[in-house]
């Protein structure tokens, strides 16, 4: 800091300081050019004043977020022995990363792969279905006027407020009476309902699809179904991706619903399966497989991280839609 100030005062003309400083190069002013430069640069919302406490807090949060991930990556390279013998945040003497992955995929007759496929099924059917329903419903609620719309609104808002956990027991009893527990349906059907997704699509459709456009289409003789698919749907893509992303993350991480619905390990999603491996270490005679649990956890988050990275630009534009007057 001090060095740059001295340079600025001894050499009036150079301008690492940008166009403003370059414009005012008279010698008397140059002495004060460096200190005042900071003042004169306007702090717009896009170029906010740097704040040391804020940076520190953000740094801490960053560390807090990344540390578990780093821990997971480091420990996925250790075997059971290494896990117990070495320091948690550094590597053990020997690395078992690939060995761990192959053992995770083959342990107990390759049940991990089965769980992975189950999870994919639940995500594809559950989150995919939830997105389709949310888009159709949201569009209908936003663009069609019909009796009971307000009631639907009230129900949806109410449903957003009820945590899924609170509904778990009644849902279990209901599915049990229908004989659907212990089948994939018990996980897929409740996942199809996403009040938040519906609400999001509703708000999004109201903003993103101009009613005038629909009217124009109608005047040109397009049917409602054709209008939806050719005109509305392309406009709804960012919102759809957002809802898809949300439901995918929710379904991928879902633990409680499958926990109470599914008893058959053949239908477990990854979350339950990994927990079952963990519980194994807590029983008399059970084999402790912490190394496989950690590697399994790493494998479990890879797809969701990938999806997030791929879809996040849609997600960002989706959330911002309608927030500014254009």
């Amino acid at each position: 800091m001090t060095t740059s100030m001295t340079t600025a005062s001894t050499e009036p003309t150079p301008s690492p300081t940008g166009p403003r400083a370059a414009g005012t190069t008279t010698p008397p002013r140059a002495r004060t050019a460096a200190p005042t430069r900071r003042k004169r640069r306007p702090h717009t919302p896009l170029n906010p004043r740097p704040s040391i406490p804020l940076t520190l807090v953000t740094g801490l949060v960053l560390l807090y977020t990344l540390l578990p991930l780093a821990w997971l990556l480091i420990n996925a390279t250790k075997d059971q022995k290494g896990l117990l013998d070495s320091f948690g945040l550094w590597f053990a003497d020997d690395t078992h990363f690939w060995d761990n992955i192959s053992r995770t995929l083959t342990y107990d007759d390759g049940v991990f792969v089965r769980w992975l496929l189950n999870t994919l099924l639940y995500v594809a059917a559950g989150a995919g279905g939830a997105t389709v329903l949310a888009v159709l419903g949201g569009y209908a609620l936003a663009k069609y006027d019909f009796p009971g719309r307000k009631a639907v609104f009230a129900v949806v808002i109410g449903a957003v407020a009820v945590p899924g956990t609170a509904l778990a027991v009644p849902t279990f009893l209901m599915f049990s009476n229908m004989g659907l527990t212990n089948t994939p349906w018990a996980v897929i059907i409740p996942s199809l309902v996403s009040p938040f997704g519906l609400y999001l699509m509703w708000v999004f459709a109201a903003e993103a699809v101009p009613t005038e456009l629909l009217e124009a289409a109608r005047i040109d003789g397009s049917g409602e179904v054709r209008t939806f698919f050719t005109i509305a749907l392309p406009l709804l893509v960012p919102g759809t991706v957002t809802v898809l992303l949300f439901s995918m993350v929710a379904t991928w991480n879902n633990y409680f619903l499958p926990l109470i619905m599914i008893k058959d390990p053949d239908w477990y999603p990854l979350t339950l399966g990994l927990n079952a491996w963990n519980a194994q270490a807590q029983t008399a005679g059970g084999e402790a497989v912490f190394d496989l649990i950690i590697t399994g956890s790493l494998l479990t988050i890879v797809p969701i991280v990938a999806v997030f990275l791929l879809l996040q630009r849609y997600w960002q534009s989706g959330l911002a839609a309608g927030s500014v007057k254009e």
Partner: protein
Amino acid sequence: MRTHTTRRLLGALSVLATLTLTATACGSDASDTGAGDSGPKDINAALEKGGKVTVWAWEPTLKKAAEDFEKKYPKVDIELVNAGTGDKQYTALQNAIAAGSGAPDVAQVEYYALGQFTIAKSVEDLSPYGAQRYGTSFTSGPWNAVTEDKAIYALPMDSGPMAFFYNKKVFDKHHIKVPTTWDEYVEAARTLHKADPKIFITNDTGDAGATTSFIWQAGGRPYQTDGTNVTINFGDEGTQKYAATWQKLLDEKLVAPVSSWSDAWYKGLADGSIATLSIGAWMPANLTSGVASASGDWRVAPLPQWTKGDKVSAENGGSSLAVPKAAKNKELAYAFTEFATTGAGASARVAQGSFPATRADLESKAFLDTKFPYFGGQQANQIFAESARNVGADWSYLPFQVYANSIFNDTVGKAYVSSTKLTDGLKAWQDASVKYGKDQGFTVNK
């Protein structure tokens, strides 16, 4: 992070369990009459006809039993389902019974939890199937745990006579003799911790199963059950003896604040910072697979005694196989239960590492002579077998022990995290258990 979520989840589950407990209490009539005893139990005919038996269990050696059974009876299909471990499985079982569908044909139930299912009449009495002939086949502790008057509610699958596991390497390094009494144990704890503040004689953050086992060994009999008449009294001499000794360890911070079965626990057992365990005889399997790096460091000794010269032990853990009343094919279910718990089925499971509840296996030469490379070639089974013979008689658990254990940490657990005394914690546990028992319709005396 993980423990946090587990905690919350367990909280949610216990609410669920309470809900369903109440539900079964009301609905027990239906399941009672719904089953109906239909004439003589022709097990052989059922075996010939074949069918599917769903077994809810987490015990690993049952896999072998299921394979052997299917080989012997090709028409029977055994479906082993791990529906969760311990109380998670009981919650699921209660739910399935309450919901009237989805219950398994056979379920693994730990001895401490069996009362909950027998009192609600949700498990089948196995004596009409011929189970009474095994009266002398099993060791007395487990057999007492599964029988009530003339009814046999389950067959013992394994047992957990307690023994003292210690890290010889640590003991040798600090010149400590293996304690034979609990007073010597406290002394050893002091010496160890003084010599190296990182070393603790053992770990304890409040474990209902361990506490009741210690009280059992000390001669305390806090629970008495006679039908729906229940007595809960932690004021007896045995309990006080346990509490006074353990209080010393807590006051002087001589036990590691590490929960059993956590990864930190396994780590402590591996690096020697948890130097001993007083635990059931099933522990070798867990040490061998979970703490492989400490192989050769550990040894087994008889449990320290409360009075010098005594030879008293207690059971810690152990499970039975029960047939729920809601089972679809009870004859087949019984056939598998019998196969897996007695005779060749039991021996095969013992060979896989299960600790026997059958006298024949416990007394067999092969079993007693087994050398454990993990314990430096020690014939540890001889110590376990002697412990099984010395288990104190007349112990019983509560018919709602699963619930009682679930509130252990809210009551006795305070002694581990605050200045509350163990005796006060036990008193609080007693009061809360009495209240719950009364709410459930039991006649409870203090």
